[in-house]
């Protein structure tokens, strides 16, 4: 099977510090993957590179069937190509209503001129209502999103990601600050989503990763230390030494 995202041999240095060191990583079009690793292992930098925020010093990032070079695109073009990103801290537009937040994220033409003359069709309104329902915010559509609770903001952001209809979802510590019930809901959603698209979850919480029941990539000092099932990687002595043993 061909890969959706293929990262090969990337390295990036910040002021002499090697954040990513000859890292290679691939993920298929419908796959759930967890990335774990200690602080400073390069997890966030890896996401920054894939989403275009940081340019690597060397290496390649290829995307999709056409093997498009993502390094040549800027953040917005990469997002348009189908890469969605969920930040650790929920970032929604607090000043605007839940419906406006979702409407903005909805997959549509992003050019200023088109957006200026864009009018929501009935199908778009229905989609927003359906998305709100999916993330449990049906009653909050007209509320300013700044009024939502922390957990609800997390959900709104997930709803916005779904509205974008990405082919690859990068999710940064989704379980942070969530209650047990919310975590279970999140796990179920991520597993469900990975049936139709690629989902990469960066997580510290081992219990959460175990529940995802997926392939795990362990990062250490900017490169891949081990890859496989959770049981496989946790049995690896090097992994125990650098990460689990602490």
């Amino acid at each position, binding site marked *: 099977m061909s890969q959706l995202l293929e990262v090969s041999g990337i390295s990036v240095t910040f002021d002499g510090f090697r954040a990513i060191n000859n890292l290679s990583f691939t993920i298929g079009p419908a796959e759930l993957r967890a990335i774990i690793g200690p602080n400073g292992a390069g997890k966030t930098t890896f996401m920054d590179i894939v*989403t275009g*925020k940081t340019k690597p010093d060397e290496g390649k990032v290829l995307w999709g069937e056409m093997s498009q070079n993502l390094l040549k695109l*800027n*953040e*917005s*073009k990469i*997002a*348009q190509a189908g890469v*969605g*990103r969920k*930040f650790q801290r929920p*970032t929604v*537009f*607090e*000043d*605007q209503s839940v419906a*406006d937040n979702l*409407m*903005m*994220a909805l997959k549509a033409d*992003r*050019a*200023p*001129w088109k*957006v*200026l003359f*864009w*009018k*929501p069709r009935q199908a778009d309104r229905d989609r927003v209502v359906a998305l709100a329902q999916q993330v449990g915010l049906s009653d909050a559509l007209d509320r300013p999103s700044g009024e939502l609770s922390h957990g609800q903001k997390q959900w709104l952001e997930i709803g*916005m990601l779904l509205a*974008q209809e990405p082919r690859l979802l990068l999710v940064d510590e989704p379980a942070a600050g969530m209650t047990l019930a919310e975590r279970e809901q999140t796990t179920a959603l991520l597993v469900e989503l990975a049936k139709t698209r690629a989902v990469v979850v960066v997580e510290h919480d081992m219990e959460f990763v175990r529940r995802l029941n997926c392939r795990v990539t362990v990062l250490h000092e900017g490169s891949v230390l081990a890859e496989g099932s959770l049981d496989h990687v946790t049995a690896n002595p090097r992994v125990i030494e650098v990460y689990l043993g602490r």
Partner: protein
Amino acid sequence: MKQGFISKNPNVLIFISCLALFTLVITVLSEAYGTGLISTSMIKTLGKTLCLCLIALAMDLIWGFTGILSLGHFAFFGLGGYMIGMWLMYARTQDIVLTQSGALPMTPQEIQDAVTNQIFGVVGTSELPMVWHFAGSLPAQLALVVLVPGILALIFGWLAFKSRVTGVYLSILTQAGTLALSLYLFQNDSGLRGNNGLSGLQNIPGLDSVGQAAVSVWFLWGSALALGLGYMLLNWVVSGKFGSVIRGIRDDEARVRFLGYSVESYKLFVFTLTAVIAAIAGALYYPQAGIINPAEIAPIASIYLAVWVAIGGRGKLYGAVLGAAFVSLVSTWFTGGKAPDINLGFYTVKWVDWWSVLLGLSFVLVTLLAPQGIAGLISWLGGLRKKEIQK
């Protein structure tokens, strides 16, 4: 459910009604068309104020909604004024030259030389500068009112936004650009008469027989129309998804980028649109002011613009209009010598000198105590009334 634009945006209806009523009342009280209670010079002041409200709207779109604190929009305002001023001065001088020419018909070259002599004698130039090439044509100069500031904004904005210059650095860059333009225009060889500027702009060619009393009311109407249309246009711009995106850029531009929107294109679009609106406001303002010189483009003017919008209330279009109208009219009153001086015994507060101090203080106070400005006060009162009704 389908709703009309007006029913979805009741503030537009209220605004247009107030503006129409204001224009009607002023017309009825004018010297030319009514009782004459309001002097022609007062009408000009009010007409100019409407133009300032229009540029304040533009400032609100770029600062209040998009979060770009441009401190250079008065440069576009001034350029708009210069572009229309060139035609006003050229055509008017041409009329004078022709009436003085006597019996012998003049060749076009002779006419041009005579006009050049009249306009540029003061800076010692005998050749018509290149930039005046189209000055004899009203349609051409009207097009330049939009094109010159528009293209300048496009180039400046493209360079600045492409390099991702943001925040206070962008503000400084716009100030520097404004200062550079102002200093350039101060030079005699800029082709725009240096520090003399352009004058006699209140005399509209071909309208000598009408008289200033009527012309001033016409310009008031024109300014009110432009302000009304500008308000409707910008209200439409900020009320749809485009408005959502630019407010998103103001609050968290990285997040907007990851949604797939090209933040730079949006900024460039808004920067250029507001520059053009500022230029149109300037083109309506200076025929009422009668004179334009490079001092009008000085960096401080653009800072005042930000102060008006801050006092009126950022992020609310009517706030910007109220702020510009209120502060500029109060400013006219204080600096016009009409405000009574305050004698403290040991020191006399002369408002002509102390007005800027008062304005600066109110800016600081508004920023600290009422960041929503006058508009915030109005929505707060509206909220109180709603609560009262609910009880």
